[in-house]
């Protein structure tokens, strides 16, 4: 496997766990089976930099580990090949860390086996719940921002990190609901979670746009509230828009280009945070590889320009 030896510069806390091979601070893509061949034909340049005029090559890729929860066959042949050439992030959608009944043990066992097999650079899941092991809901259901939920969620993240023997990242949710019993806002909840569990954040900026629009919040204030030091990865994606009599409802379907507002929010965040591993997520209506890498190239350019400003 390709290994990156640099120590993570955002590692903090006292959980006693580390990420041995962090993602490079460049742009990556969510890898789908339709793009395996092209990804293998144009692996990242050794120095992970992109020069004008060159075909853009993602610096790393992300997969959903649940798609590889099988013993063998073509999915593993592809993944093994990809891991030879790219730093890989496992973005789990199935641990159900926020379930009051506790996380999904079967999913954790399978995730651990996959991590053992491929040694991914990063592992992440969501601030959400998905039912129980006997009653599964394939969605990322929202959680209330209460102290009870924080304690419970932090304990589940701690169990996961102990079992995987590594730090994980937790992604902020896209929200369609807010709870009357919330005792803190999202950023406060996420920061307290990182403090209690020793995890990092996967900061999904499209989710900020979705949540802010659906719940009537200020997306720029939400981005500004996030502690950049805790962010180990950024997600960028598109969403669907439904028009209703009460206004637009944004659906986080990852089926289109990153919106102008999400790019603006990303620029604002990167100007403050510096370059971060930043992913283009596209899970439905998968486009041509060139479109995906075009989006990744744009993220790369924004980070490069922000770095120049920082250096100046």
């Amino acid at each position, binding site marked *: 496997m390709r290994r990156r030896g640099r120590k993570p510069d955002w590692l903090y806390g006292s959980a006693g766990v580390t990420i041995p091979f962090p993602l490079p601070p460049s742009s990556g893509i969510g890898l789908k089976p339709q793009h395996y061949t092209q990804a293998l034909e144009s692996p990242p340049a050794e120095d992970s930099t992109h020069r004008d005029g060159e075909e853009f090559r993602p610096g790393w890729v992300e997969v959903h580990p*649940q*798609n590889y*929860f*099988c*013993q*063998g*066959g*073509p*999915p*593993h*042949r592809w993944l093994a090949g990809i891991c030879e050439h790219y730093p890989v992030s496992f973005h789990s959608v*199935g641990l159900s860390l926020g*379930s*009051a*009944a506790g996380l999904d043990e*079967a*999913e954790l066992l399978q995730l651990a086996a996959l991590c053992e097999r491929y040694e991914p650079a990063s592992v992440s899941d969501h601030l959400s*719940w998905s*039912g129980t*092991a*006997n*009653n*599964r*809901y*394939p*969605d990322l*259901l*929202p*959680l*209330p921002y*209460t102290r*009870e*939920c924080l304690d*419970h969620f932090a304990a589940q993240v701690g169990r996961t990190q102990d079992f995987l023997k590594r730090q994980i990242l937790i992604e902020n949710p896209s*929200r*369609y*609901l*807010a*709870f*009357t*019993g919330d005792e803190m806002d999202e950023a406060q909840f996420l920061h307290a979670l990182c403090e209690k569990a020793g995890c990092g954040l996967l900061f999904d900026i499209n989710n900020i746009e979705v949540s802010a629009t*659906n*719940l009537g919040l200020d997306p720029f204030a939400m981005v500004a509230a996030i502690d950049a030091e805790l962010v180990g990865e950024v997600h960028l994606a598109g969403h669907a828009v439904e028009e*209703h009599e*009460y206004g637009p*409802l944004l*659906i986080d379907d990852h089926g289109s280009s990153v919106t102008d507002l999400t790019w603006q929010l990303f620029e604002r965040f990167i100007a403050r945070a510096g370059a971060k591993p930043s992913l283009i997520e596209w899970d439905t209506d998968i486009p041509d590889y060139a479109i995906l890498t075009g989006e990744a190239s744009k993220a790369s350019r924004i980070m490069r320009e922000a770095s120049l400003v920082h250096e100046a």
Partner: protein
Amino acid sequence: MKLDALQRSMIEAIDKGPDHVADTAFVGGRKGALRGLSVHANTISHARLVALEETFPKLRDLIGEERFNQLSREYVGRNEAIGEPLNAIGRRLAQFMREKPDCDKTAAALADFEWAWLKSYHAADAEALTLAQFADADEETLLNTIVALHPASRITPASARAALLDEVPGLADCAAILLTRPQADVLVSPASEAMVRQIDELAEPQPFCNLLGNVDEQLLAEGLQASMAMLEAGALVLFRQESNLAGNRG
């Protein structure tokens, strides 16, 4: 509201509809709750239906999109479906179809076939035993070689063949359908009764001599033919060899 009570109420609303929404828990009251929970209910339903479509493309072609959607919606409302992760949601679809009074047996057998195909596709990798490895082996070596079923090998009922005849030659008179994956691709082959017997025998690794049968010459010939067909299809692996075979893979 405590976390477990809140989650129970959300599940109730998602499963049973808007009459069960605990609207005091959500900002925006009943309207806000319905708007948000309906997005989640749609996402959940869509994810389950898409997973079934991706697992059973041939069944969908056979029975048509409308019937398939109706069948899928009935199935995903059942406990046996919602207890499975998405990648295993189709595990009991064929059984569910058989329990229906107007069961289309060919369609149910095709669901069995497609589930078996998926299991074969995802099975552990192993090097299939080939006929070439016996090229220089004497009879005693061959008969004492212990073989096991390749992890990707599956046998499914022949009743699905009507839906597969155009794609797979030789299925018209088969006793069952054999699925194998000696390399990357899943192969579909006709299986004789003798092959089905041998696969049953191979619940545990066996020496070849046990597979061939020794009652009379006709059975012996059938057994030999079946074993050769299984080797050609890549259905077997070497468990232990009693002597050197070509390409020593013990």
